[in-house]
């Protein structure tokens, strides 16, 4: 396909709005076919008779292009005689080297060029980038696409050079190491220089470098019928960290090739010319499979490869509280990056400290050789033979696609009592637990419970919670009422009148057989009068029978009751002055009547 270098059409046009005779233009070289494996040169040229200081602060954001180097600045001046006048013209050129990032459209947006205090902008340049050579050209030994070389930088003669990246497998398990090799194939080309221009990011891999010497490791290879010198210029071991489709982006390198001038003398004595070209690898696609879930041991921690385990104590006998080192080494082909410490079921008679971990990774024969060592410090706490069970380390074997377990040998540590003397007659210091264990079972004391609900879930709790809320207003009311009563003297007397009257009558009744009749009847009459006095909060001293009668009548006591009250009082008066009325039976009758009258009045009032 023909190259589309639209820039060429724009070259030579004056910048819009240019003042004076200063011209600013941008163009690219080569102006013809552009491929993604060869660099471009971007030129920004400023021409005029009297140029100010020229600079470009920043290039705009390029599309599908990146800057390899630049700017480099060059100036030139020329003088022209016009009649008797000498006219001077000068030019400043700023040069950038660009590399297409891939096939497709590319664009250099307008570039702001600073001319003293003035800013001029160039026209945008649009390019169509074609795919360059990244693989051996078809057609065997023939140079199939001579046009891919940058203009003015021809490859050396009929030589063919290409880069190739390849992995040892296209499908691997997660954390299975896979070698990656980038090889430079050269046929009939004299390579004088090689430098890397672009590396992929390896975002989904752990990467281990494999040292190597491309020249020393050079070998002959036939590719599509043509013999090449193959230089393994880069070796890595990749360890995919997550399942899925992984892509390794292209590597890019810049090559300097010797170019024949055609003149044997110049070639011999001057070394000839050189050409610069860029080669890229194709992307490498890798399918990463997740580790199977079936059969995965519970303590599997991610080791993938083929491993062996060694476990050893630094001694087989020790005293109590001695420090004994247990070194466990897991080594083999594969990755131990994520491997956790092997399971160590140490007996309770051993105090186990956190292990010290040392790692060693090497590569040989395209394999990743990993060694990880865990070193525990064990302190025996009690004398006796301590048996340390075999240390186990589960891993996934990618060759067989099964989980396996590396297992060490059981170990025996003979522990003797410490013969170290204690400091002073009594060893002083903090008491520390020698080991931890379960607290012992509980004995049976009393009956077993059928499960009482918690206190806050019992009905009694809720009742006791709610009861005060109900009781408090009642109690407050009652207490207030009683307080008010206690402060009303008349009411208190009235409420106590009947009880006091009964007490007085009872006291009088005890004297029926012993006292004289006059005193008895007087006491009965006084008890009745005092009852009325109490009931009406009056003094009994001035309470005549008539007044008492009026008071009772005023409170609605009926005539019969009042008459009965008065009759009783008059009967008592009569008996005080008539001794024969003071028989015991008569006294009893009077007392009974007085009590009945009190009850009658109490009900009526």
């Amino acid at each position, binding site marked *: 396909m023909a190259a589309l270098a639209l820039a060429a059409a724009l070259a030579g046009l004056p910048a819009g709005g240019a003042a004076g005779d200063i011209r600013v233009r941008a163009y690219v070289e080569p102006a013809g076919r552009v491929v993604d494996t060869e660099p471009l040169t971007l030129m920004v040229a400023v021409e005029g008779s009297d140029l100010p200081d020229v600079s470009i602060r920043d290039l705009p954001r390029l599309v599908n292009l990146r800057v390899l180097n630049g700017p480099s600045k060059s100036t030139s001046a020329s003088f022209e005689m016009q009649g008797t006048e000498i006219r001077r013209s000068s030019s400043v050129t700023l040069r950038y080297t660009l590399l297409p990032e891939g096939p497709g459209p590319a664009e250099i947006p307008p570039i702001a060029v600073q001319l003293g205090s003035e800013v001029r902008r160039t026209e945008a340049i649009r390019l169509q980038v074609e795919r360059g050579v990244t693989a051996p050209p078809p057609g065997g030994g023939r140079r199939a696409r001579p046009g891919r070389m940058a203009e003015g930088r021809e490859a050396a003669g009929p030589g063919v050079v290409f880069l190739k990246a390849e992995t040892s497998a296209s499908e691997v398990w997660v954390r299975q190491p896979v070698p990656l090799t980038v090889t430079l194939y050269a046929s009939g080309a004299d390579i004088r220089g090689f430098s890397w221009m672009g590396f992929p990011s390896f975002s989904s891999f752990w990467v281990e470098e494999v040292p190597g010497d491309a020249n020393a490791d050079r070998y002959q290879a036939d590719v599509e019928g043509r013999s090449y010198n193959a230089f393994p210029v880069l070796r890595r071991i990749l360890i995919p960290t997550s399942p899925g489709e992984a892509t390794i982006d292209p590597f890019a390198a810049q090559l300097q090739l010797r170019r024949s001038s055609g003149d044997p003398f110049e070639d011999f004595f001057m070394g000839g010319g050189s050409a610069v070209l860029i080669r890229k690898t194709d992307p490498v696609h890798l399918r990463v499979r997740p580790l199977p879930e079936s059969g995965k041991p519970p303590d599997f921690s991610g080791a993938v490869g083929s491993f062996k385990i060694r476990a050893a104590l630094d001694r087989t006998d020790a005293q109590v509280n001695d420090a004994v080192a247990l070194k466990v080494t897991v080594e083999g082909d594969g990755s131990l990056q994520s491997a956790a410490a092997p399971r160590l079921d140490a007996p309770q008679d051993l105090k186990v400290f956190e292990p010290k971990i040392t790692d060693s990774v090497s590569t040989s024969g395209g394999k990743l050789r990993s060694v990880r060592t865990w070193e525990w410090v064990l302190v025996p706490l009690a004398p006796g033979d301590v048996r340390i069970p075999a240390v186990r380390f589960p891993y996934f074997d990618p060759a067989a696609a099964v989980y396996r377990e590396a297992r060490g040998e059981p170990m025996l540590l003979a522990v003797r009592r410490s013969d170290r003397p204690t400091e002073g007659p009594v060893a002083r210091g903090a008491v520390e637990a020698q080991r931890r264990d*379960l607290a012992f079972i509980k004995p049976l004391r009393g*009956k077993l*419970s*059928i499960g009482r*609900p918690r206190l*806050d879930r019992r009905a009694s709790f809720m009742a006791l919670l709610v009861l005060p809320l109900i009781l408090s207003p009642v109690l407050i009311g009652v207490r207030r009422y009683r307080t008010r009563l206690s402060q009303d003297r008349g009411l208190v007397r009235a409420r106590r009148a009947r009880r006091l009257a009964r007490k007085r009558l009872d006291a009088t009744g005890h004297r029926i057989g012993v006292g004289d009749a006059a005193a008895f009847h007087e006491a009965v009459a006084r008890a009745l009068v005092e009852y009325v006095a109490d009931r009406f909060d009056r003094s009994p001293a001035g309470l005549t029978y008539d007044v008492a009668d009026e008071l009772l009548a005023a409170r609605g006591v009926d005539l019969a009751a009042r008459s009965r009250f008065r009759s009783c009082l008059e009967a008592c008066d009569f008996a005080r002055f008539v001794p024969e009325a003071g028989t015991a039976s008569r006294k009893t009758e009077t007392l009974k009547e007085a009590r009945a009258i009190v009850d009658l009045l109490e009900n009526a009032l």
Partner: protein
Amino acid sequence: MRAVTRVVAALALAVSALAPALGETPEETFSRGNGAFEKGRYEDAAEAYRTVLRYGIRDSRVEYNLGCAAFRLGRLGESILHFERARRLAPTDPDVRANLDFARSRCFDRVEAPEVAAPIRMVRAAQDALGPDRQAGAVLLLLWLVLGLVVWRSSRPGGWNATAGWVLAVLLLLLAIVGSSGLATRERLEGTPVAVVLAPSVEVRAGPGESNAVLFTVHEGLALEVRSERQDWVQVSLPNGLNGWVPEEAVGKV
């Protein structure tokens, strides 16, 4: 709930009344289990404790001893399950807490829980030491003191003075603190249903069914919060935010 408890209690009483006729009371079975444990016959001990539980007994000592026997038999998940149950029945028992911590330390999984500030840890330790019952009792006591003070001062002719007001304020503050603490303790102990992994390892899936993707794997003894249940599957979550579904038979609900 209360009705169910009563029914269970009645059944338990009936069974325990019947037990002598069958040859052994729950207490005798428990003692037999203790005897087997002391002789190192942990399987016999565990079976005896399970028999006691089948009587309907809900006693922290039985759960605790069964947890000890299961631990000695190497059944870490079952051990933690019964220690958790014992803790719910006797939250203040230091042996239960110690054994639960010890058994948890043997779990394979280490789940990073969100960091809890030191003051909150201290408050929780105090709540655990007191237990929900003591806090509920303190609430009752404080409530009665508050209402006694209110009744006394409100019915007095002199009414309230500054001292009485301050005493009331302090009592109300204490009541609020102890009450909320008791509720928080109960919520922490019983609020979230918990299940313990009993199988050596369990794949936690994205949904309730074998066809769903495996999200992560948990191992024996790990306590999981139960979020929901569906047929034979339980939706669980971890303190670090991971969640998924596990088969019901692989876990034991506390």
